[in-house]
């Protein structure tokens, strides 16, 4: 079991080739003559959108949402730009397709596109929409002409979902955070106040050890109704999970822990009580809507094209832990997408 999101964000390849290729088709078609090409949905005569992505279950879902919305309006081409030949794949795709827009899924893909821009030396580039990258809260500066959709579910959405499940009030949420994420948490707390959610921050050092983390947990648990676990890889190492988070969460007083990675919810582990994650198919739809908006602007980014938050989420519950330690609302399970027991 992956204990943090790092391996996902680096793009774990799946065994199975390709993605659904055309509208209405569930079968994969890869083009052997186009190395790196994962899939396409061609609409003859329509402008092209280039989608740079690794081949994973989650990116396929985003691709599905994109394709459902954009097929017939745009030609979509998906390429994998990871690995040694990624730069060549990307450069060839840009030269062949002259896309009006580029979608970049995950951090390595963004890095690859930044390298492309640095070497291509063009006067202008099509707008890029960045999705599925860590803590994207403002327009990326590493690449020219980019905006995006954050991959972190806003705290206001997380707690709104939690309140549908818990019969006891959720008024204050505790969060353990390192200094680099202070402004992110501050912004989230400001949004959360709209729903009368208080945030109790418990700072830790840049490289906390298990003892510091466990102490932080014990402190913050005294003052909150739930714990929001940030997707900070430095706080989610195997050692910190095993020696810090698990002991700290599995002693009284119990507080529900909301995590942002599916791998952190497991009945055998009792870490996350709930996971609230972006709905990847809906993320594809949301991305497509950004592309339609850009089309209305002749594919010119404006000051209004800020980074959005993901609108749609899925909720997973560790039902064993939830039932053992917390009181759930009677209709709670009607509000959950995935139940683990």
């Amino acid at each position: 079991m992956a204990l943090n999101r790092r391996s996902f964000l680096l793009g774990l390849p799946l065994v199975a080739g390709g993605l659904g290729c055309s509208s209405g088709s569930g079968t994969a078609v890869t083009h052997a003559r186009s190395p790196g090409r994962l899939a396409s949905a061609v609409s003859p005569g329509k402008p092209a959108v280039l989608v740079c992505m690794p081949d994973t279950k989650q990116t396929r879902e985003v691709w599905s949402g994109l394709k459902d919305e954009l097929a017939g309006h745009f030609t979509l081409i998906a390429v994998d730009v990871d690995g040694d030949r990624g730069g060549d794949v990307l450069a060839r795709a840009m030269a062949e397709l002259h896309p009006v827009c580029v979608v970049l899924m995950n951090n390595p893909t963004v890095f690859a596109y930044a390298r492309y821009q640095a070497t291509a030396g063009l006067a202008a580039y099509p707008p890029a929409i960045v999705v599925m990258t860590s803590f994207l809260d403002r327009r990326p500066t590493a690449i020219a002409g980019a905006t995006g959709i954050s991959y972190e579910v806003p705290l206001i959405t997380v707690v709104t979902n939690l309140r549908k499940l818990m019969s006891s009030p959720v008024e204050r949420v505790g969060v353990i955070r390192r200094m680099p994420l202070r402004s992110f948490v501050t912004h989230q707390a400001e949004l959360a106040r709209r729903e009368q959610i208080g945030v109790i921050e418990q700072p830790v050092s840049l490289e906390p050890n298990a003892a510091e983390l466990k102490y932080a947990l014990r402190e913050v648990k005294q003052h909150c109704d739930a714990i929001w676990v940030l997707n900070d890889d430095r706080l989610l190492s195997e050692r910190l999970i095993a020696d810090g988070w698990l002991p700290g969460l599995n002693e009284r007083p119990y507080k529900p822990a909301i995590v942002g990675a599916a791998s952190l919810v497991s009945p055998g582990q009792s870490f996350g009580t709930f996971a609230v994650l972006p709905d990847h198919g809906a993320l594809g739809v949301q991305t497509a809507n950004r592309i339609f908006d850009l089309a209305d602007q002749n594919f010119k980014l404006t000051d209004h094209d800020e980074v959005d938050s993901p609108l749609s989420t899925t909720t997973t519950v560790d039902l064993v832990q939830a039932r053992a330690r917390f009181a759930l609302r009677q209709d709670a399970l009607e509000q959950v997408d995935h139940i683990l027991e």
Partner: protein
Amino acid sequence: MSGPSRKLLVFLHVALKQRAFESELQAALPGLEVRAVGRLGDFERGLEDGQDGVLTLPDLLASHGLAGKLQGMRGGSPEERYSLVGAGAVPDPARVAAVGALDLLGRDGTNAFVYALLGAKPKVERVTKFEDLLPLIQMQKVDAILLPTRLLADLQSASRLTLNQRELAKLVKLPAVASAGAGGSDVLAAVARLPAKVSRTLGVDEWR
């Protein structure tokens, strides 16, 4: 009913998760194989797979060449009211710049649906699930959201924002069932016998 299970495809937005909605329908329709989807793309793929019956809004049935044979009714009417809902002041349909709406008809169809209801042409932010409407208001992405009036209580129960509504004059047809295959009549008969509690989830108190 004899022979293989008749297949019913359902595409509606309700105030519970699709998984729970499908389970509830399946339990109430044991003789049918029920698939509940939440996205238009999944609906269209479901149609391609072949169905005996389809349950969705009449406008969507018509756009796919299907005719509703069993119409949902509430209070004796086949239609219901929608509301424009915002946080703060009561929204004015003529002045809202951006509206959130459930996507039942695709981009162009949903835009046209919203324009017809409002009598205006705001920017439309489409979402694929009922629970995704609230974040649009919470994050101030839109001035107001559009939804069936009967779902307002569910929306308000999930939020501490003060939500104000303006009910719109134009009525919208309630869900209907179309026959789409050889077993269509079996599907219609089964849906006509849906328990009241389940029908109410769809905003319906009788089928005609």
